[in-house]
């Protein structure tokens, strides 16, 4: 079984599922069940693939390589390291959850609308798996851009009232970044060894390009990833897109898709352009810290809860980038772990907020108040999700945020201290929000028939909260998965961890 | 270049230039077309003079004959009279057009002046068996593929023209019965519009009929003539018709309020 092309199969299953949905007759009644089945099948496949993966081995695994366009040096090459595998796992876990959460988003009115909706989600899943698994730079670029298509339609066709503008804004931003990256991708090929597999990542790392070329190529990739991530000051598309998108779409957009940005920084910027990365580090660190604080401050100011969640994500992405560019094992492990954790946290925040919106019909925070007395379970789970968002120890996000801060401190104490103020601000934006939503007397204008969490919604929330607790108290399996990949990255960059100023001898650890 | 040919050139050349200038300055399209035909014929003669008899004949027959006739047909359909105002609407178009054209002429002429043309070889050797035979050999041997392609191009062009000129009916054609029924229903011209030209002195369709009270019925004049302003006014009770446009058009209408709809339908 070990020579099964696991990644290709995982890529093909949701893609074929999406195709099948499109080919089904109009008004296919079981579209949702079918899509859920496909996504669960993908999940099971990912589990099997995960079993094949040898934890602790820092090489690319589950490798597949086929010649695709040899004239241009493009291959269809897939492979995963710990970071990629964890991101793929995150995707395949979140997609079924989102499908369940989005069960009633689009009415089954006999038209093709519902089929289209779930088909786009499945297609997006395929793209996400592809983008994390691609080990050919050009293939990565293709997935990177192709991902925009499903999201564009998910927002533009199924989103809120201002969906057209939001979708266009999202597309323009992403395309801008993508095109800059395309230039860098082509430029990279010309400095690489060329040949029929000249775009393979393995052929492009460790090139020692040097000089202005390397800096320019680095910038080309970095700008694309910074827009995707999104970092201050190119973040403004995210709040808009996340607000207009359906909660499930927003989850996939913010929870998984944006991770491509930080993932790309790790995989491409740092590994292929180590010298330029070190050159850019001071600026990136400043931007990351700004993102942390700026995102948090703006989250406090928001009146729309989806916007608020989007801004918290900007703050959290600041932490992730900070950890990546602090370039210590601790901080980068923290960042990669944060990428996983943030996926779950944001998913819970968006989906639970979505449940509230579905009941109240408004995203404005001021329209709520006292909902702990209307829907105690939703309010309670919202609080748990929020506490995860403010990195309460014992819940998932804490470990990663802590690792980022202490890891960064080893090299950039000032940045770590400034970034850590995000901890205080996080308490403010989450708790003030929760206070406005859930506390206070029972609202009088809410129908007494408003239902608390339904069984379907419990199935959405339960796995997420389970993930919070497991990752909070026992993150070791995930960390073991991530750390070898991080170590490899740091070797490529050529930095070593700073040793403790006091060399501990005879410590009992 | 023999003396005769030189004479021909210096007579016919300026004529062609004049003709083309006529194309440039003529107010009416018909005049322009005639000037164009002149140029074509002139060019045909030049071809013949240059030993390209077959092409020259084709030029005169096909171009001056067929193509220019086509132009004239279109001009007649579109309207011989339709002239466009000579006031330029695009800013700077006239100045820039002249400037660039003269510049082009200058650059091209200057360029030509610097070219040393070879001594003319003449076509005697090339078409010893006659122009037509030589051309046929050329076309059906070396250029046969181009020729075939051109043939299909022509067929496609014809089909394209048919498609373009064809007008799809949007509504089914109304039968006499329906038209009559509608006239009765709307109570307008139940008996049909009055025929024109019943006035004794003018038995032509550009003259309106006179109603029993002696007023002219404008509706009796075909609307194409009205649109071109070619209807022939008639005096009414001693008033000079030229300066008078009585509201006769509505005179037959059963009710003034109907006028708008009825006219709209007829337009």
């Amino acid at each position, binding site marked *: 079984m070990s020579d099964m092309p696991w990644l290709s199969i995982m890529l093909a299953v949701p893609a074929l599922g999406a195709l099948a949905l499109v080919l089904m007759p109009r008004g296919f009644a079981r579209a949702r069940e079918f899509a859920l089945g496909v996504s669960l099948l993908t999940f099971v496949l990912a589990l099997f693939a995960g079993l094949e993966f040898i934890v602790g081995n820092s090489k690319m695994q589950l490798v597949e390589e086929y010649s695709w366009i040899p004239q241009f040096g493009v291959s269809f090459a897939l492979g995963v390291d710990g970071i990629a595998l964890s991101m793929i796992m995150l995707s395949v876990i979140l997609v079924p959850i989102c499908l369940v959460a989005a069960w009633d988003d689009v009415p089954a009115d006999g038209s093709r609308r519902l089929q289209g909706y779930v088909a786009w989600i499945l297609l997006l899943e395929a793209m996400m798996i592809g983008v994390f698994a691609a080990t050919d730079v050009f293939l990565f670029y293709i997935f990177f851009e192709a991902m925009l298509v499903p999201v564009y339609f998910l927002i533009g066709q199924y989103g809120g009232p201002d969906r057209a503008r939001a979708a266009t804004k999202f597309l323009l931003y992403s395309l801008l970044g993508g095109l800059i990256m395309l230039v860098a991708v082509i430029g990279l090929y010309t400095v690489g060894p060329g040949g029929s597999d000249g775009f393979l990542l393995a052929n492009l790392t460790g090139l020692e390009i040097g000089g202005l070329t390397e800096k320019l190529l680095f910038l080309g990739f970095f700008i694309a990833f910074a827009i995707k991530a999104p970092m201050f000051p190119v973040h403004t598309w995210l709040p808009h897109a996340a607000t207009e998108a359906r909660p499930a779409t927003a989850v996939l957009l913010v929870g998984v898709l944006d991770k491509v940005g930080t993932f790309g920084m790790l995989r491409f910027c740092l590994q292929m352009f180590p010298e330029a990365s070190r050159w850019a580090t001071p600026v990136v660190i400043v931007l990351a810290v700004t993102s942390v604080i700026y995102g948090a401050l703006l989250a406090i100011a928001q009146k729309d809860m989806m916007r608020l969640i989007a801004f918290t994500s900007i703050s959290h992405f600041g932490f992730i980038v900070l950890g990546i560019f602090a370039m210590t094992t601790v901080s980068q492990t923290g960042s990669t772990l944060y990428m996983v954790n943030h996926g779950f946290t944001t998913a819970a925040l968006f989906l639970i907020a979505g449940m509230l919106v579905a009941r109240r019909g408004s995203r404005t925070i001021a329209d709520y108040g006292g909902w702990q007395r209307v829907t105690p379970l939703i309010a309670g789970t919202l609080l748990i999700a929020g506490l995860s968002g403010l990195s309460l120890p014992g819940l998932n996000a804490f470990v990663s945020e802590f690792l980022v801060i202490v890891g960064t401190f080893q090299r950039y104490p000032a940045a770590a201290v400034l970034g850590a103020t995000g901890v205080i601000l996080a308490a403010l934006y989450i708790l003030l929000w929760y206070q406005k939503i859930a506390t206070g007397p029972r609202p009088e204008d809410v129908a007494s028939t408003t239902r608390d969490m339904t069984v379907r919604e419990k199935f959405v929330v339960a796995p997420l909260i389970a993930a919070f607790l497991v990752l909070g108290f026992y993150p070791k399996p995930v960390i073991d998965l991530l750390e070898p990949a991080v170590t490899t990255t740091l070797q490529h960059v050529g930095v070593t961890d700073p040793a403790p100023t006091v060399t501990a001898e005879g410590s009992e650890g | 270049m023999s003396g005769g040919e030189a004479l021909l050139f210096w007579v016919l050349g300026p004529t062609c230039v004049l003709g*083309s200038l006529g194309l440039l300055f003529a107010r009416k399209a018909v005049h322009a077309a005639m000037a164009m035909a002149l140029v074509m014929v002139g060019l045909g003669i030049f071809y013949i003079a240059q030993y*390209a008899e077959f092409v020259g004949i084709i030029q005169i027959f096909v171009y001056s004959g067929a193509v220019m006739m086509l132009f004239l047909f279109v001009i007649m359909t579109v309207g011989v009279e339709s002239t466009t105002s000579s006031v330029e609407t695009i800013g700077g178009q006239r100045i820039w057009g002249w400037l660039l054209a003269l510049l082009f002429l200058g650059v091209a002429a200057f360029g030509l002046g610097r070219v040393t043309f070879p001594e003319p070889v003449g076509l005697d050797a090339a078409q010893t068996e006659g122009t037509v035979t030589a051309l046929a050999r*050329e076309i059906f041997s070396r250029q046969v593929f181009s020729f075939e392609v051109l043939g299909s191009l022509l067929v496609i062009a014809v089909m394209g023209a048919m498609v373009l000129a064809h007008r799809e009916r949007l509504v089914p054609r109304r039968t006499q019965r329906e038209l009559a029924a509608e006239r009765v229903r709307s109570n307008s011209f139940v008996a049909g519009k009055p025929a024109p030209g019943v006035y004794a002195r003018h038995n032509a369709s550009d003259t309106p009929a006179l109603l029993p009270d002696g007023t002219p019925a404008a509706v009796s004049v075909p609307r194409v003539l009205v649109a071109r302003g070619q209807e022939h006014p008639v005096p009414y009770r001693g008033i000079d018709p030229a300066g008078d446009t009585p509201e006769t058009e509505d005179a037959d209408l059963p009710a003034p309020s109907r006028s708008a709809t009825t006219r709209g339908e007829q337009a």
Partner: protein
Amino acid sequence: MSLSVYIYLATILFTIGALVVLLRRNTIIVFMGVELMLNACNLALITFSRMHGNLDGQVYTLFVMVVAAAEVVVGLAIIMSIYRARRSASVDDANLLKL
């Protein structure tokens, strides 16, 4: 006097044709301007044919005439349909192809 005078004449005719296209607004006249330019080229081709003593120029002239005929057919049909739609023969009235 060499054959180059024919070329100069062709150049002058071509320029005038271009001017017609640029300055006249009646669609049909503009179209005739295009024809004039084509004919000017034909004249040059015929002259070159005579200069070089081979028949290629004449063959191309024939071809140009065929193409011109096809063009005229389609072009006039377009003019007709524009006129039908807009009741105008001015090229400036067909200006919707823009941003």
